[in-house]
């Protein structure tokens, strides 16, 4: 799932570098509040990164397919080190892969860090796997949590690859066809990744239970929302200036079939000649405000739940 430099444009690469750098800064800031020197987290993070590398060299057979795969490691790192440290370690692993093995590129490193680090560490782990691991439970719950988390993380990561490649405009591959090719494959890979991660975590829980309780303070949704908002702002505010003037797939099909360019013959919007950058920013902000407003309104209109006191 590593993206090469050749598949992205400088605009998308630069945007994702900015987003990943912001996430790195946030993670470093959060780690700076812990006593990572005395607790030995720094060498542990280095060893964990090397461990993920080493584990990726061991292939395991995938039952029923005749092929073999290897561990990706994002979810395992988040479970062992916490989401912030896990994200940093994953970004270092990806940097070494890009430099030494040409697995991904230098400009595409921002995209790879976001696809392979942000989704497992800041979306899948805090929302799905982390709560189950912190809440205790048997091996079945760990398996279910890891499989769900890995499925979510890898599917979202592959969706990121599809969107970044499509937004770069390097290939003529239609978005739907590309997504239909990538998402099911990575969903299946996610299931296997989840099983392998769960097997490792169950073993580690039995051997050293304290290891899988590394993250005492959950990351919450703030970093995820902030990263997605920054992404949207950069894409809408800057990358939209590089938007293609060529017709998209639907318009091109209509143009060839019917001889006119508009799919719906809709009239031009009066005064609709605004610059793409500011219009994109204003539009994104308006969508955000409307969505937040709807959410608050629904919350206020919902009837409050009645707490049942079991002692009565």
């Amino acid at each position: 799932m590593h993206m090469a430099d050749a598949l992205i444009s400088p605009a998308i690469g630069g945007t994702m570098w900015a987003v990943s750098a912001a996430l790195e800064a946030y993670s470093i800031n959060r780690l700076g509040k812990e006593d990572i020197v005395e607790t030995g987290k720094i060498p542990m993070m280095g060893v964990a990164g090397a461990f993920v590398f080493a584990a990726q060299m061991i292939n395991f057979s995938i039952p029923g397919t005749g092929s073999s795969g290897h561990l990706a490691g994002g979810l395992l790192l988040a479970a062992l080190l916490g989401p912030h440290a896990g994200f940093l370690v994953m970004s270092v692993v990806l940097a070494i892969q890009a430099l030494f093995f040409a697995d991904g590129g230098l400009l595409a490193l921002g995209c790879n860090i976001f696809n392979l680090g942000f989704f497992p560490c800041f979306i899948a782990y805090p929302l799905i796997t982390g709560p189950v691991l912190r809440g205790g439970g048997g091996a079945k719950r760990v398996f279910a949590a890891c499989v769900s988390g890995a499925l979510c993380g890898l599917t979202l990561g592959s969706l990121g690859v599809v969107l970044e490649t499509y937004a770069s405009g390097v290939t003529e591959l239609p978005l739907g066809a590309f997504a239909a090719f990538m998402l099911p494959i990575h969903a299946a890979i996610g299931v296997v990744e989840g099983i392998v991660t769960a097997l490792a975590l169950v073993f580690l829980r039995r051997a050293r239970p304290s290891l899988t309780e590394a993250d005492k303070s959950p990351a919450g949704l703030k970093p995820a929302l902030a990263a997605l908002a920054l992404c949207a702002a950069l894409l809408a505010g800057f990358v939209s200036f590089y938007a293609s003037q060529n017709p998209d797939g639907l318009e091109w099909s209509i143009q060839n079939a019917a001889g006119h360019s508009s799919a719906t013959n809709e009239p031009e919007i009066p005064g609709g000649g605004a610059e793409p950058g500011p219009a994109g920013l204003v539009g994104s902000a308006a969508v955000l405000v409307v969505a937040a407003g709807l959410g608050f309104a629904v919350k206020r209109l919902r009837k409050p739940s009645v707490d049942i006191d079991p002692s009565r």
Partner: protein
Amino acid sequence: MRYSYVFIPPKEAYALDAAKAMSALRRADELHLRKTAMTALHPAAHFAVAFLFIVAVLSRGGHSLSGFVPFVLYPAAVMFLGDIPPGLIAARVAPALPFVALVGASNLIFAADKSAAWLSFFAICVKCVLCAAAALLLVCVCGIGGIARALDFFRVPKLLVAQLSFTYRYLHVLGEEVVGVINAYSLRSYGRNVCARGMSIRQFGPICGGLFLRSLKRAEAIHAAMLCRGFTGSMPVAKLKSFSQPDAIWTLCWLAFFTVCTIWDLPLLLGNLILGAV
């Protein structure tokens, strides 16, 4: 008494892939230890030029392949001045091509103009080769130590630089452990070819977990040793030489060259000039 015979395959191929990966890692890093014109420059200059090269190559449109020809000058110059074997770079770049070529081949299927589609397909492949070569050459001339110094020069947070150094150092140690793990598993699995088929998924989890526990023990021992030696949270980065005039000239000359190559198609201009004169 009945005897059962077990076929024991030759063991030299068990951990070949892992051993090859570790050997390639070591070889790429050791090239920077030699004294060449490239190693005399500051790593930050190499890092900046490599990054600018990648941006320039990707900014070049895919409508003309001749426009990419001048860009070959940079990797060729680095290989020549740094005494880096081209075969090493070619062998490491080759595995990066198939997926990129597959995505680029989609242009041949979905694009309306087939001649433009072929041009864009080859342009994507050329970009992949050039960009991958630039990243590999950066490691060959700087090494991981040089890259850490370059990141420190660009004010990257010390925690991240420390993690890069730690991960790389431990990678060699754990790589040897992995070769041992694969050999041990293969010798006990009655001829199962772990390289080709991989180990059983049910056994991979505990093996992976055991590898992590051993790694953790090493990390704890190393942490204790580092604290005893005054470790305060950041790895000291050796400042062997400062960014000087030759480094700035190297960077600015390549920046100007890349800018010219991105804006104009130099071979096309040269060809028109020659044909016009003739």
